[in-house]
């Protein structure tokens, strides 16, 4: 495949979170509300008609109108003016709590997550302790000690809130700390401060902003609660103390309680909704990233498809070797197409007009590079295409039935029993919650309808057959207790447990070491011989092809370019792509040779 020099269209410029929020209805409404409340509080000295603390006996519980727009409270103070000034104190108090929580939580989270060690353990203990403390009780106790200061109690509340940030930042940092790009930055000689600022802070920034909005809402509510209980500073107006006053006089002047309650409620709701809106936007932005990558690959495939069509290149088909005794045809794939539905309603085709014939007792190699559609072809035979994928055309005949037309229920009968599958990643295909034995027995009991004792006997025999040294121990082991090579043997045992006619192996040895690979290939060859199965072997490794395959089909960008007996492909490849692939093999190239450096007069060891 030619590495096209950046034919990819430039990605959309990164849009800031703020700009994106402007397109989110709830986000806009809550932001506007919060900005209004903040502005009103800041501009209170200009907007207020009265001094918030001047009591007036004449105006005690005055009705709305008559000089006081929203009336006056139990001491004859103007409600609107108090509401405006109270905003200053309530918001400042909540911001103070937030600032304390941020400074403590974020710095501790960064340090603990990045450096680990004793600080990590100590701060984890401390956050555990803080989270176990009942916040309200601590605040009440603190008031008893330090007196009724709103600022102090808000600072203490900030400390109590800091674990929220600590845990958030700690989790993000530990996830990023071991990324290779952080290692690369360290090798580049960047200082820790720079690495944290540049690579780590950017990761935690968004979740911290969201958390801040939530925490601010909590702080406002808690502060109002404290003041409402009458535990606040009587000398400064706050929404909570107004609530307290209104509640006491609720029978004499019911509207008094309404205004502060309304403001507190609206501000808290707006903050929560804003946090939700920000999270929505951030999560939505992750979608298109994935999509654009898939779309880019799909676009490239589509381009190549167009090019191939223009060239009118048909697949090169090699004739069978004359002395070969052809077995019965097991699987006949004709004109297969696989496509993925896109969000805009179109379909991206990843496999086009693929023909494939597999005979009983034959190992058929499906070869190609990433994006060639070889795995998609294999999965469509199993009818296990990933979300959004579907067979768009053609037929898959297996034992007289067209698998492409079977219902999901009928297909379940075929899968596992008649067609088995060996995956690429053995570890991720074993459920870590169950023992190896139970995972082997379950399908056998379903497929073959045998008893538990019989299934156990068969499973142990199979484990011994695939070369596991101590079958009983492995039978009782959990997947994490065995090595990757052993896990692949277990999966092979599982695949052949119901004696299938067709085995589909998707890069079965790619994740294994070469010595283990050699043994697994040997095992596959023996089992294939014993059970006389047809095997589809998806691989990119020509060594594996040469070792195991009878026939080879080479795929490129969703099409078959060449197919034939293995020796014809290796010795008489005709398609330029096949030749290019074979040319890239390093096995036959000469070694690099001796080291010479003229400047050093080449003293060799």
């Amino acid at each position, binding site marked *: 495949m030619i590495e096209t020099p950046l034919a990819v269209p430039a990605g959309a410029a990164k849009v800031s979170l703020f700009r994106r929020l402007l397109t989110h209805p709830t986000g806009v409404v809550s932001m506007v509300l919060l900005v209004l409340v903040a502005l009103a509080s800041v501009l209170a000295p200009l907007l207020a008609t009265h001094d918030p603390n001047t009591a007036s006996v004449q105006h005690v519980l005055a009705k709305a109108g008559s000089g006081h727009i929203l009336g006056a409270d139990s001491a004859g103070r103007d409600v609107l003016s108090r509401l405006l000034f109270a905003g200053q104190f309530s918001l400042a108090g909540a911001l103070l709590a937030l600032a304390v929580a941020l400074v403590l939580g974020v710095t501790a989270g960064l340090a603990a997550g990045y450096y680990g060690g004793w600080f990590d353990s100590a701060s984890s203990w401390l956050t555990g302790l803080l989270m176990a403390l009942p916040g309200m009780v601590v605040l009440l106790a603190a008031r008893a000690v330090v007196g009724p200061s709103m600022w102090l109690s808000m600072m203490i509340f900030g400390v109590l809130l800091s674990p929220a940030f600590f845990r958030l930042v700690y989790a993000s940092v530990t996830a990023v700390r071991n990324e290779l790009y952080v290692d690369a930055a360290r*090798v580049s000689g960047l200082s820790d401060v720079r690495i944290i600022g540049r690579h780590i802070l950017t990761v935690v920034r968004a979740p911290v902003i969201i958390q801040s909005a939530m925490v601010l809402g909590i702080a406002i509510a808690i502060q109002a609660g404290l003041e409402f209980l009458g535990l606040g500073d009587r000398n400064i107006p706050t929404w909570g103390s107004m609530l307290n006053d209104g509640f006491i006089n609720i029978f004499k002047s019911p509207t008094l309680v309404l205004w502060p309650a309304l403001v507190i409620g609206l501000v808290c709701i707006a903050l929560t909704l804003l946090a939700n809106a920000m999270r929505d936007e951030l999560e939505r932005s992750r979608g298109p990233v994935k999509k654009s990558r898939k779309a880019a690959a799909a676009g490239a495939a589509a381009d190549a498809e167009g090019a191939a069509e223009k060239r009118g290149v048909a697949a090169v088909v090699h004739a069978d070797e004359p002395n070969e005794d052809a077995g019965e045809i097991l699987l006949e794939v004709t004109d297969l197409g696989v496509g993925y539905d896109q969000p805009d309603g179109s379909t991206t085709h990843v496999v086009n007009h693929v023909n494939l014939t597999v005979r009983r007792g034959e190992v058929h190699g499906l070869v190609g590079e990433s994006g060639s559609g070889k795995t998609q072809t294999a999965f469509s035979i199993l009818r296990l295409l990933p979300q959004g994928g579907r067979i768009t055309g053609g037929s898959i005949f297996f034992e007289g039935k067209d698998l492409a037309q079977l219902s999901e229920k009928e297909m379940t009968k075929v899968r596992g029993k008649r067609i088995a599958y060996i995956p690429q990643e053995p570890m991720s295909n074993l459920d870590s919650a169950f023992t190896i034995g139970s995972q082997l027995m379950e399908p056998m009991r379903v497929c073959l309808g045998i008893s538990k004792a019989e299934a156990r006997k068969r499973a142990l025999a199979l484990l011994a057959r695939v070369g596991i040294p101590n079958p009983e121990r492995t039978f009782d082991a959990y997947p994490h207790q065995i090595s990757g090579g052993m896990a692949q043997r277990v999966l092979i045992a599982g695949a052949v447990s119901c004696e299938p006619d067709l085995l589909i192996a998707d890069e079965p040895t790619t994740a294994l070491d070469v010595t283990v690979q050699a043994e697994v290939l040997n095992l596959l060859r023996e089992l294939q011989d014993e059970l006389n199965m047809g095997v589809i072997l998806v691989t990119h490794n020509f060594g594996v092809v040469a070792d195991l395959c009878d026939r080879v089909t080479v795929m490129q960008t969703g099409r078959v370019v060449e197919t034939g007996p293995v020796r014809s492909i290796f010795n008489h490849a005709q398609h330029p792509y096949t030749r290019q692939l074979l040319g890239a093999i390093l096995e036959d190239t000469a070694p690099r040779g001796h080291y010479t450096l003229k400047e050093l007069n080449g003293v060799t060891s």
Partner: protein
Amino acid sequence: MTDALLDIKDVVVEYPSKGFRKEPFKALKGVSLDIRQGETVGLVGESGSGKTTLGRAVLGLAPVTGGSIKYRGQEISKATRARRRDLSHEIQVVFQDPYTSLNPSMTIEQILTEPLTVRKVGRRAANERVAELLDQVRLPPGAAHRLPREFSGGQRQRVAIARALALDPKLIVCDEPVSALDLSTQARVMELFIEIQERIGVAYLFVSHDLAVVRHLSHRVAVMYHGEIVEWGGGEQVTGAPEHPYTQRLFMAAPIPDPDRQAQHRADRLRLLELQREQDVQASVV
């Protein structure tokens, strides 16, 4: 040896085990190796053999608890952070996975200028250097303002190579740099490695599990097994006529991409395994 660029002697790397008073896990058990200027030393081994750990030890990313690593005669295994920063001009790295070794939120230009900021290179000079680096790894200049996700695996690995070259290092530790790439892309990236070496005389410590890749690139080859080097010598000798039983097994296990020769190779492998088993039995009897 006087002309060694990097001299590794009896290096031990230990990772603390989980659990109270447990023996630490020894990833390297006394490894010795040297690399000369402009030379490629290949490091082959299977997973868990310690080959990646040795590369990380050279970079200061693994805890060296014994032995010495000397760069131009100076001990660097216990280097301070400040000294490490100076070393960043000398020793650089290319990692295996081109998908995670580039920060997804930074443009190629930002990624390439990052190492330059350590040197306090001015903005204009830095931009010129980025253009030069992109040209060196055969990427078009327009690549500078793109994000890593817009590139294919091979192109990303070129960016990673460009980042390693940014500070003109004398040694690059390459940790499986072509393992995640397609066959033909792999061949082209390897040609790029050789071309750069021939032009600027940089030395490589080339870590890989792929014998063919190592043989193609390396002047000398070390074979690792269970945290030790079991065979060490000229590339042709080690890959052509291996002496250690493990190396023999390793080379016999790699399949040859030719059906008839592979059939022969497979038979040879089984014969070798049989022979080694007999020798083991005899050894245990004696």
